[in-house]
């Protein structure tokens, strides 16, 4: 190993790189590095610099390699990068592979206990005397391992210029103001910084400088946003079964609901959250509750969704409003439970045997996650059908910057529900499945309605407009046609695509969900290469209609998605086959969030 080579010294002379780099922190999971990483992220955020943090963790509890990547970018491009400028290495097991992904001229901070040789003379290398610094702090022995990770926070902070005040704020945030842990952690940070001042000379070009770009923004994860969205949507019933990466959505409900949704006078709950014994039961409960007139939901990921197929089919057919969150992880099968993808799209589009249709909402950032979180109930209750919201591990579990969550801009829409007084007015004359309004959506009553004509019988088998059992062929046919009509009625209620255009654009890019940051960055880079692009981020399925014009306005539209089979592209082909020659599929999936580079390279090569 060598300390400071000729090479490195040369590159030192290059100009400073400010607010524009990626950091990878390589640790072992279960070691408490999450706190340290979150602290780095939030303190940079608090400095006003756009940032994102992504946790790339194994599917186990303790002892395996974990990476945390922080992207700092003054222009706001915060997609993940495959390679990083700064590597903080705390895990000898991954030293070599990590180093291979350090960009030329990058910086290596390395626990000095990792005595491994390497041959990269062009990089900047700072060994970190982790143990030694921790030893200086008075702390209970059981905390020492955790505190070790705070050392790199201090060292990094000192060298790249994270403001210590912001670190303190971040720690306060993390420990919810509890001063004891804040103080002890902060002390480690300061000592580490002190050590740097005394022992290191800064040679690398990476610097942070405060900006104003995150002012007024928030930083949180999608599963928190989803839970809050549901709560402001008036969720009354949630049943769920633990599964990564959806678990924290339900756990956030459990955390926030008691604070936000107790009756002020009586301290009684206006909600119930039930951990079911599996997903067959979770969806059954949610469908039961939705049928009973509650705003009901469940949250799961791929394997759970597969188990829910039959009940969701019943929900569609029996016309029960329910909201289902699918926080996607990469599949098929159990797959990689801690890696992300957008692979459940076609499965859901055709979910359940027989002819089915489902409304799918496709949020692309935490604000949409929040917004769709409440809107989904309005849509589900108005259309009387399951609404599935597709999030993913990246959006759900990683930290995203966003605008403050906006209070719902419209009153709750509970759909066509008849209560006692309505039935009195109607003289008891109504029929559950009679399409009186011609929009496919019929009137329903819910249990507890004491009007003697209120009750009806719900079933997954054939029925006529009066909810009587029926095997009549024409009946069945008409019922299915009415169900189809509901989805036409639904379209105006669904979020329209977000379309962003460039002047003199040449190509279109179409995508969904969490690929947004990578796409924005590639567009920027492509534009720098002279390839201007328009971007349509689809936010709902069935397609609402506006997609057509967008596609038509470009000869080539790249359909970008994180799966293997180009599932969005498949659905677009079904809907707009005549435009298929304008669609070019870019589907790539390896479990990690998309990088701008991958897309940029693809489009650039394709254009050549």
């Amino acid at each position, binding site marked *: 190993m060598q300390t400071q080579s000729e090479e490195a010294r040369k590159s030192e002379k290059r100009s400073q790189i400010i607010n524009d780099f990626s950091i990878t922190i390589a640790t072992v999971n279960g070691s408490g590095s999450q706190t340290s990483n979150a602290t780095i992220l939030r303190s940079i955020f608090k400095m006003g610099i756009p940032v994102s943090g992504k946790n790339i963790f194994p599917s186990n509890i303790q002892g395996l390699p974990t990476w945390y990547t922080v992207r700092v970018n003054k222009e706001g491009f915060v997609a993940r990068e495959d390679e990083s400028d700064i590597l903080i290495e705390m895990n000898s097991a991954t030293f070599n592979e990590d180093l291979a992904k350090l960009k030329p001229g990058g910086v290596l901070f390395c626990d000095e206990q990792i005595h491994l040789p390497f041959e990269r003379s062009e990089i900047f290398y700072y060994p970190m005397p982790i143990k030694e610094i921790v030893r200086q702090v008075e702390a209970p022995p059981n905390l020492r391992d955790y505190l070790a990770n705070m050392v790199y926070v201090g060292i990094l902070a000192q060298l790249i210029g994270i403001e210590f005040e912001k670190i303190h704020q971040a720690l306060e*945030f993390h420990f919810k103001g509890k001063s004891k842990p804040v103080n002890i952690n902060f002390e480690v940070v300061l000592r580490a910084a002190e050590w740097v001042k005394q022992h290191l000379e800064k040679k690398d070009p990476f610097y942070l400088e405060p900006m104003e770009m995150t002012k007024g923004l*928030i*930083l*949180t994860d999608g599963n928190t946003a989803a839970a*809050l969205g549901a*709560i*402001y949507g*008036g969720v*009354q*019933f949630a*049943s769920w079964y633990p599964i990564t990466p959806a678990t924290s959505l339900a756990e956030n409900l459990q955390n926030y609901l008691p604070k*936000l949704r107790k*009756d002020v006078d*009586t*301290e*009684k*709950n*206006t909600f*119930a959250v039930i951990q079911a*014994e599996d997903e*067959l*039961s979770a969806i*059954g*409960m949610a469908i*039961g*509750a*939705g*049928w*009973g007139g*509650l*705003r*009901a939901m469940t949250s799961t990921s791929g394997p759970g969704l597969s188990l829910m197929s*039959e*009940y969701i089919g*019943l929900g569609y057919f*029996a016309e029960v409003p329910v909201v289902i969150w699918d926080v996607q992880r990469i599949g098929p099968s159990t797959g990689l439970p801690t890696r992300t993808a957008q692979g459940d799209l076609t499965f859901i589009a055709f979910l359940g045997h027989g002819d089915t249709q489902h409304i799918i909402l496709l949020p692309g950032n935490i604000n949409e996650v929040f917004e769709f979180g409440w809107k989904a109930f309005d849509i589900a209750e108005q259309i009387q059908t399951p609404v599935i919201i597709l999030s993913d591990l990246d959006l759900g579990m990683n930290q995203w910057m966003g605008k*403050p*969550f906006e*209070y*719902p801009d419209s009153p*709750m829409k509970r759909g066509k529900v008849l209560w006692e007084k309505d039935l009195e007015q109607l003289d*008891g004359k*109504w*029929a559950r499945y009679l399409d009186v309004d011609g929009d496919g959506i019929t009137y329903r*009553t*819910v*249990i*507890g309605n*004491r*009007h*003697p004509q*209120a*009750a*009806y*019988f*719900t*079933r*997954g*088998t054939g029925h006529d407009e*009066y909810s009587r059992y029926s095997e009549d062929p024409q009946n069945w046919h008409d019922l299915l046609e009415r169900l189809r009509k509901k989805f036409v009625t639904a379209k105006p209620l669904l979020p329209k695509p977000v379309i962003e255009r460039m002047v003199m654009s040449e190509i279109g890019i179409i995508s969904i969900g969490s690929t947004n940051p990578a796409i924005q960055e590639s567009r920027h880079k492509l534009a720098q290469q002279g390839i201007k692009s328009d971007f349509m981020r689809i936010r709902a399925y069935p397609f609402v209609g506006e997609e057509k014009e967008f596609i038509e306005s470009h000869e080539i539209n790249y359909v970008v998605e994180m799966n293997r089979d180009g599932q969005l592209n498949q659905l677009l082909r079904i809907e707009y086959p005549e435009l298929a020659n304008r669609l070019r599929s870019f589907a790539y999936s390896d479990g990690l969030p998309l990088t701008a580079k991958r897309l940029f390279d693809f489009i650039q090569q394709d254009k050549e």
Partner: protein
Amino acid sequence: MTEQIEAQGKRSGVNLVGLTKMDYKGNPSTLCQGCGHNSISSQIIAACFELNVHPEEVVKFSGIGCSSKSAYYFLNRSFGFNGLHGRMPSLATGALFADYTLKGLGVSGDGDTASIGLGQFKHLLRRNMKLVYIIENNGVYGLTKGQFSATADQGLELKSHGVNPYMPVDIAWEALIGHATFVARSFAGDPKQVKELIKAALNHNGVAVLDIISPCVTFNNIDQATQSYVWGKDHETALHELSFVPRAEEILVEYNENEVKEVQLHDGSTILLKKLGRDYDPTDRSAAITILEESNACQCLITGLIYINPNQPSMVDMYNLTEKPLNRLTEVELRPKRETLLELNNTF
């Protein structure tokens, strides 16, 4: 809209809530003539009529099977949901959270409950969800034409399905071990007992499991089958003569205290158990265990209230819900105030 069922006879007397038995009827049954399930439907109707419960206050649930179809053949003025095979418990659980004032009444079959549905059934019990859960137990899958269900006798031989090789699920045993707070076994051929058990169950604050032997006359009614009419008639041994006395009513019948046991329910109503031969205390779990062991050994059909624990909180109790039923809460109650979101935003 509730379908109007043509009165098939003269309207009989009205009950305390001003309804006649007709108001508790359902659509005409399409089950086979003589099917045990039909007789249970009649007792559900009679029990609700006699209990003076408004049909609108009962919600029916079922899975899939002939038994589950029967939910359409009683209480036409009650809401009902005929769900998926084996997964009625979750459906009922979710639905009943919508309005805790309602009485849930589930009807299932042995295939529905003990084959595909065993998991959901057992978890329902653990949670003590307030639901009357009737298993119309005939040892076969009636609706799919008579294959063995999980409760079929081991060694039972049926013409078109050979010999059943597996050990049967004993639903009452499962319920007891699974922490059910009300476990009864009965026989469709004993309508009086069925009716009184249903009344008691409808007033129990928790899950009430009624394992009712209900012969399938089409596929499993051979005399050797323990789920047949003949076997049941020949082997039934009632633990007691059971009658239900609602809260409002005084216990008028005079009886010798040594001969009758009283069990008081959560809502103040009472179950009277008149001794028949043995001294049996259904609130004693060990006694229940003994009786079930004995009933395995004795080759008899012991019927009656096997176990009851009237004091455990029901699942809905655990959730500390508003007094107003959840499904009647309005936007003001459901959507937190604007300020709260501003505060929250400051925490991110």
